[in-house]
């Protein structure tokens, strides 16, 4: 039988099967941690520390209840003397020989993350869009130097930046304030925003604005009504990348906030508690914290490469 020469671009069926099995195998293994943390969030603290680890366990909402509440331990007699639990979650708390003491700080930290994330994203994308347009269209003196400088700010380890910023914030009264972190994240994200958006702007043909200006638009009007709509995808992509950075940032948040303005990343490791055993609560916090990022990653998959390489690879 004559073998049919296959195109070098079209691997044989066997080669494809081989590739598929290996890739899917890797993907499944690499997803174990995420699946496991999700499963842990629905377990009881006892099941979470069972030996050997249970693959299947009774589902429970204790992790989420513990995540959002603070509780105090009471004796069995005291517990028996109490009136029956009013809500389902109070029941879950009592099952652990504890009574409800109040809400935890998790929701505050989560809201802080949202506020600081959206605030800094808005600022850095607005400023970044303007700067990127200027770098893309005008002759700015020392343009390449500025662009490289903007990039090189990312080479400084965050802890090194945090030393003077800590002192600066202390003098300005910005330590542990939302405004302080918003400003700082804005600056850190600016480098990404300017580089990414410049790439997107460069791809918009100049003829569009030129034509608009021939029709009597000023440059500002042309920028608003012609360039911005064309750059919408780029701006959306950049926004999500800035948001994810601010959402995930840990070092600055750890060193520059302690209470009022603390975001989720420095808070989540502290959920485990003093006994070091409340893993379901930590897993619940982690799940709620990671879910938005996972959704955005899937939405962004086409532009991921561009974002993570500062626009160096555009595909």
């Amino acid at each position, binding site marked *: 039988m004559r073998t049919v020469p296959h195109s070098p671009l079209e691997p044989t069926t066997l080669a494809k099967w081989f590739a598929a099995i290996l890739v899917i195998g890797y993907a499944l293994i690499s997803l174990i941690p995420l699946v496991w943390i999700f499963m842990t969030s629905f377990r009881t603290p006892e099941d979470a520390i069972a030996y050997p680890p249970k693959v299947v366990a009774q589902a429970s909402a204790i992790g989420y209840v513990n995540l959002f509440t603070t509780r105090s331990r009471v004796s069995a007699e005291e517990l028996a003397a109490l009136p029956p639990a009013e809500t389902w979650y109070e029941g879950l708390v009592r099952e652990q020989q504890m009574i409800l003491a109040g809400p935890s700080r998790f929701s505050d930290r989560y809201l802080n993350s949202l506020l600081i994330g959206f605030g800094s994203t808005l600022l850095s994308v607005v400023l970044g869009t303007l700067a990127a347009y200027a770098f893309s269209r005008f002759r700015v003196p020392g343009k390449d130097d500025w662009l490289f400088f903007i990039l090189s700010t990312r080479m400084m380890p965050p802890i090194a930046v945090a030393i003077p910023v800590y002192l600066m914030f202390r003098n300005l009264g910005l330590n542990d304030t939302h405004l302080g972190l918003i400003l700082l994240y804005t600056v850190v994200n600016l480098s990404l925003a300017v580089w990414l958006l410049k790439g997107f702007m460069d791809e918009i043909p100049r003829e569009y604005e030129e034509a608009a200006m021939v029709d009597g638009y000023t440059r500002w009007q042309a920028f608003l009504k012609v360039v911005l709509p064309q750059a919408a995808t780029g701006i959306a992509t950049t926004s999500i990348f800035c948001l994810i950075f601010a959402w995930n940032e840990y070092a600055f948040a750890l060193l520059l906030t302690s209470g009022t303005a603390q975001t989720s990343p420095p808070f989540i490791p502290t959920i485990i508690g003093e006994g070091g055993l409340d893993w379901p609560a930590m897993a619940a916090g982690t799940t709620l914290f990671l879910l938005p*990022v996972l959704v955005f990653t899937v939405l962004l998959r086409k532009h991921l490469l561009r974002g993570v390489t500062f626009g160096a690879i555009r595909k």
Partner: protein
Amino acid sequence: MKPRVFTQWTPPATAVPAANLAQAPGAALRAGGPATGRGRLAARNGLSDRALAWLFVGPTIVLLLAFNIFPLLWTIYLSFTNFRANRPNAEIGWLGISNYQRVLNDEAIWENMRTTAHFLCTSIALQLLLGFALALLLNRKFRSHSFWSTAILLPMMLAPAVVGTFWKYFFEPQYGIFNAIARFFGASGNFTMLGDTQLSPWAIVLVDTWMWTPYVMLLLLAGLRSIPPYLYEAAEIDRASEWTKFWRITLPMVMPFIILALLFRSIENFKMFDLVDNLTNGGPGSVTELASIHLKREAFEKWRTGYSSAFAIILFVAIYGMSLVTVRFLDKVKQR
């Protein structure tokens, strides 16, 4: 090419109605030609392009000056003093370069550097190998390959601090899933990844590799897809073996992407803090104390601000130098 030609075009005053001259300043400015009558036109237009350019770039530059240049200069100043941030009112003494001398003569710092170098080299080597293999396999475009590549990419977008926290749970020797899997495959399971001085440097490498292999895969996949098909077709005609095709076409063509991945990963891992701070916090002892972890201890636990400023500057210079060398190398490879 087209836009360039277009912008160099100066409208002849007679042929064009006056209103259309609105675009003249921009064209003249960009093309570097004499901007005749800019004042008059700018007045019509509201703002000249030059003014608009500064208005657009200005806020960004001001913020960068305030939050990057100024702190950097301050760090450089502090690195020559004995300032301690927990004693803001104490008199600041000028030490000259002695902080730098102390940093460079400090045995602990060199130990950190060795730890960092070990982490950097092993994690990046593993990620390159695994990432390249995955990219080659994914490039065979089997059905559902794009779904699985998205699935593989998920870990790299997560918060490293949170990743460090939940891996700590997986590494628990009794109830952690990592040891359980090791036991399942017949290993003794009586080991503690995070408590053992031999194992914990590998624990951080493992988690970093789990998180960042997708990144390398993504870059190299783009590299593989950028190779023009005719090269392989030509090789096929010459009856080149798969092996030859890989070494003579695939690898050289992907090389710039490999170097780019190397550059981005080494900058990131040199700065590594979040993940390791939560996973091992530098321990046990100081076997996983990377440069950034040590810096945090010196600056924010021992409050040796001047000394740690000097260390910060040295780190910055090292990262900057490493990046410059890599970029040079990248240019060389690209020119070939």
